[in-house]
């Protein structure tokens, strides 16, 4: 066990992958000498060289498009998109090419490509630097979409993502980059399993990425008020571990889902639909969502109120329990 930050854990995971597998290489803007704008790739270029830690031209479609070609040649590229709001120029390559190659080739060509994206808000940044694009990718067959909430998951999940023979969108909650925690050397869970991070019997609260911490705080406060809230960290958004969510809801009878991304057509809508399809008669209350609003991400002076936080989660817990 070592203690490190979430950013440091990803750095350790990338270092481990570069060391153990010569097919792994990193592509991204400013990831070499600078070590990335969040320093996630700090020191890797110095240790592994510019052939394996590649400072690319400034072009997101190029980063992903060349990764597709590298994968065809047998490599396992790990791309960094500098910020969530900069991924859109690469969406053609991600959705039409990367996600569909296995399918188009009748299963003959694998695309073991990871796309790391620092995502989400809460760091007082300017526009295009705080977005939550996960639903775009989770809606695309062929892609896997995961996000970590702790240094331990960050280290283990980046290794699992790189080892995957399918393309993985790896979302890094940027406001948790400096969160410290212990890192174990072996993953406790498969990449696509959700984790019950706190058990409870009255209500299930589902979160992922940056909102796992406020969800736990919500459960703690609700506990002081006499309510037993179970918290699930989804970890994987595609595929979804609905079994873990369903088993919890069947016990608690109540569900609140929370994410920073805007509400309509989001991950929360999918979970709500699944639960009503499969656990309708177990529900004591409607499934509620605590999410970002259906607006562009606001100027940073407004983000604290705009983002889902403990207060809004507690209000939703109260509403659910009132049924």
């Amino acid at each position, binding site marked *: 066990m070592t203690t490190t930050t979430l950013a440091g854990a990803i750095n350790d995971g990338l270092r481990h992958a570069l060391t153990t597998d010569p097919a792994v290489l990193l592509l991204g803007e400013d990831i070499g000498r600078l070590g990335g704008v969040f320093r996630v790739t700090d020191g890797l270029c110095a240790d592994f060289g510019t*052939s394996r830690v590649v400072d690319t031209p400034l*072009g997101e479609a*190029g980063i992903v498009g*060349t990764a*597709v070609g*590298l994968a065809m040649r047998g490599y396992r590229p790990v791309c960094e998109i500098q910020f969530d709001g900069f991924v859109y120029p690469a969406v053609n390559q991600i959705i039409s090419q990367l996600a569909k190659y*296995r399918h188009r*080739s*009748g299963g003959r060509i694998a695309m073991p490509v990871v796309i790391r994206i620092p995502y989400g808000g809460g760091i007082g940044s300017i526009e295009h630097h705080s977005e939550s694009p996960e639903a775009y990718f989770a809606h695309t067959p062929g892609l896997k979409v995961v996000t970590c909430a702790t240094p331990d998951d960050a280290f283990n999940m980046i290794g699992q993502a790189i080892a995957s023979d399918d393309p993985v969108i790896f979302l890094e909650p940027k406001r948790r980059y400096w969160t410290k925690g212990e890192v174990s050397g072996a993953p406790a869970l498969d990449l696509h399993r959700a984790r019950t991070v706190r058990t409870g019997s009255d209500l299930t609260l589902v979160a992922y990425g940056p909102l796992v911490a406020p969800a736990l705080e919500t459960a703690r406060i609700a506990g002081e008020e006499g309510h037993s809230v179970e918290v699930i960290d989804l970890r994987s958004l595609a595929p979804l571990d609905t*079994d873990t969510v369903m088993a919890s809801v069947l016990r608690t009878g109540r569900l609140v889902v929370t994410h920073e991304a805007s509400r309509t057509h989001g991950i929360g809508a999918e979970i709500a639909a699944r639960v009503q399809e499969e656990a309708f008669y177990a529900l004591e209350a409607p499934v509620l969502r605590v999410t970002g609003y259906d607006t562009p991400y606001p100027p940073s002076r407004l983000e604290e109120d705009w983002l889902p936080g403990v207060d809004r989660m507690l209000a939703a817990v109260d509403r659910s329990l009132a049924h």
Partner: protein
Amino acid sequence: MPRTSAKTSAKTNDRQDPIQLLTPQGEAVSDARLPFDPADVDLPALYRDMVLTRRLDTEAIALQRQGELGLWPSLFGQEAAQIGAARALLPSDMVFPTYREHGVAWCRGLDPASLLGLFRGTTLGGWDPRDVNFNLYTLVIGAQTLHAVGYAMGIVRDPVGPAVSAASTAAASAVLATPATPAAPAAPAVLAFLGDGALSEGETNEAFIWATTQSLPVVFFCQNNQWAISAPYSVQSTVPVAQRAAGFGLPGIRVDGNDVLACLAATRRALHTARTGGGPTLIEAFTYRRNAHTTADDASRYRETAEEKEWAAKDPLARLHAHLVATGAADSAYSAYFAEIEAEAQTFAEGLRARCRALPEPDPSLPFEHTYAEMTPELSRQLAEHRAHLASLQEISGPSGERA
């Protein structure tokens, strides 16, 4: 085959003037910009490639008209560009085609029926690109240029790349002199095809930047057929394709795209440059798409018949045929040779029609099985649901196939 006597044409110094080694009248000429000895190529074999490729195209159009294919993008008029470029390749080179490279596919040894599956709707790409080093057709314009660049990045990082560079340089030199496969393995290069419309895509421009700044072994072969569906080249740019290369720092070369010798010579030289560490080249094959963009399109709505007639007079097959007749007139074996190719084309077409109709219907589970490396639990549930639905239809329709 008889040696051809090359004359020097009255070329201007205008760098926009496409390099030509075979005139529309079938006369072999030389151009100082692209030294080339026609004796280095098997001209009758190139002619056969072009005839069979055109026949493949003709048959596919007929199959589409009969309802056997959903769509077909015709290559009619672009045979010289494709055969010339493809016959410059070594087996170890990798090709990234658009959706119109039927002639290149032919030269790579791909079963033409495999191409038809995509347009018939039985597959999304019915071959293994690694078998023939010919990638799947890419329908999204320009996307494949970046894949080609990434693949070239892989080549230069491979243990086999730098390690064999000295030997491969010699081998690649040998390739320049003869089209025969050399004994020593040459460093592979990448040949990316694109059209004039693709040059307007941001991704193509990104591909040029990546390829030049990293000096990658990739050749971009642009068939400027002058029409992006209904948009003429003047909508894409005000300067010739080859000139646009300069701004990216890669050499641009403009050849007569209806001249198989010029296309072959230019691609050979560019591939040699690529595999010997000289970096990328952009070749513009100035040609013309004589049919509509696809079978779904009506070219008469956007272009003049006078233009079409002008290009018909520059037909790539006719000029090589004229050349072969003129230079081999004394050889009575030639007429027999042409007859043999025609007979072969007829047999080929009949076989292709039969194999198109015999392409197997895909199993309903096919998309489910190849979405991820392993089927996810959710996809397993959806496949079971789908199969149950199909089974219920069977029960309704009964063994006769008619609904009860």
